């Protein structure tokens, strides 16, 4: 369910600011710098987000034809996360803790030693699991200055907005009554009055 098929669930964002000159070249350059990169078990990060081809999360070859559809920029936001099963981690930690204690005179591990052990185990266990992958469609109508993003999660929306702003060097703001009215070019007097209205009492 998303941009290309099924019912659509999305949040709109407005792009503030003008498109730069040669925007197609500049955007392709920006996208190229923030294409999704696979997680590496050796890295000390739990999650990574980046752009992929819309509706094809394994396709990271973001060519012009795959990104631009006339006046639309279509992208996928891919977010991979290491998810080590809790039971696996708990069992591995218990065993490692016993081994460490057996080799030392201590009765129990200090908090800092536990943290260190956790980090070592996480790095080891990452090699045994594959990252959980999620991908979300995004369609930017350059003419309207509207981005439709197909996720209702505020956290994912925040990740997308951050990546979008870094990629395109344009500000993104979520739709709402005030910005929607501004975008629709409602009368300036009405726009000025909106924030001063009081809720209706029935």
């Amino acid at each position, binding site marked *: 369910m998303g941009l290309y098929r099924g019912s659509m*669930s999305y949040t709109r964002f407005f792009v503030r600011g003008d498109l730069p000159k040669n925007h197609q070249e500049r955007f392709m350059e920006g996208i190229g710098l923030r294409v999704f990169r696979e997680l590496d078990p050796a890295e000390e990060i739990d999650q990574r987000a980046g752009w992929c081809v819309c509706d094809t999360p394994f396709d990271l070859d973001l060519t012009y034809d795959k990104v631009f*559809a006339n006046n639309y920029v279509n992208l996928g936001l891919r977010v991979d996360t290491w998810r080590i099963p809790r039971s696996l981690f708990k069992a591995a930690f218990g065993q490692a803790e016993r081994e460490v204690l057996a080799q030392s005179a201590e009765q129990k591990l200090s908090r800092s030693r536990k943290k260190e052990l956790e980090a070592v185990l996480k790095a080891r266990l990452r090699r045994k699991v594959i990252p959980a992958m999620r991908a979300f469609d995004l369609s930017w109508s350059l003419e309207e200055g509207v981005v439709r993003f197909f996720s209702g999660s505020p956290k994912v929306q925040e990740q997308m907005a951050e990546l979008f702003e870094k990629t395109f060097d344009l500000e993104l703001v979520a739709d709402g*009554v*005030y910005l*929607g009215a501004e975008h629709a070019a409602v009368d300036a007097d009405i726009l000025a*009055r*909106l924030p001063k209205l009081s*809720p209706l009492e029935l």
Partner: protein
Amino acid sequence: MELIDRIENSRFLAREFLLWLWYESDRLEGRVEVEDGDFVELWFEETLVLTDAIAEVRLKAPMPTTTPEAFEALRQGKRPALAKLRITRGTQAWTLTYKAETTSLSGVTLPAELREDDDEGFYERVNLVEQVEAMVAQLMGRFLALRCSRSWGRSVVPKLQAWVQAG
């Protein structure tokens, strides 16, 4: 006033917009004017959520806005926060769920699509979604103009009060 304050201070109007749509749809038997002389059929169906600062009423019914529980919630001060709408223009019908908090649309079903799942299909889908967004925006524009007018307090509010009490 900072932009963030203007955004936050106007947020409650999305719930009042849903209330006004409900009133208009009820009063005009579904035939709602989006712009001068341009009408759509607009009905509330299946899901309606009304909230206030402390509680929520979630109604599931074929026509939830006609239920006594919906009007009782209005009389208690609750306002619609989420509603499923069916909008029909000519032979084309859209259904969508409008969430007031974020003015976002979910579960948007489009009129029957003609093209395949390819580039042409994308343009057709995006055109259909832009059409329904435009209708919602026009309705919102009408509501905001009325909400800021003198006739809101003088004429509309008394009618809304009578409608809620009678419902």
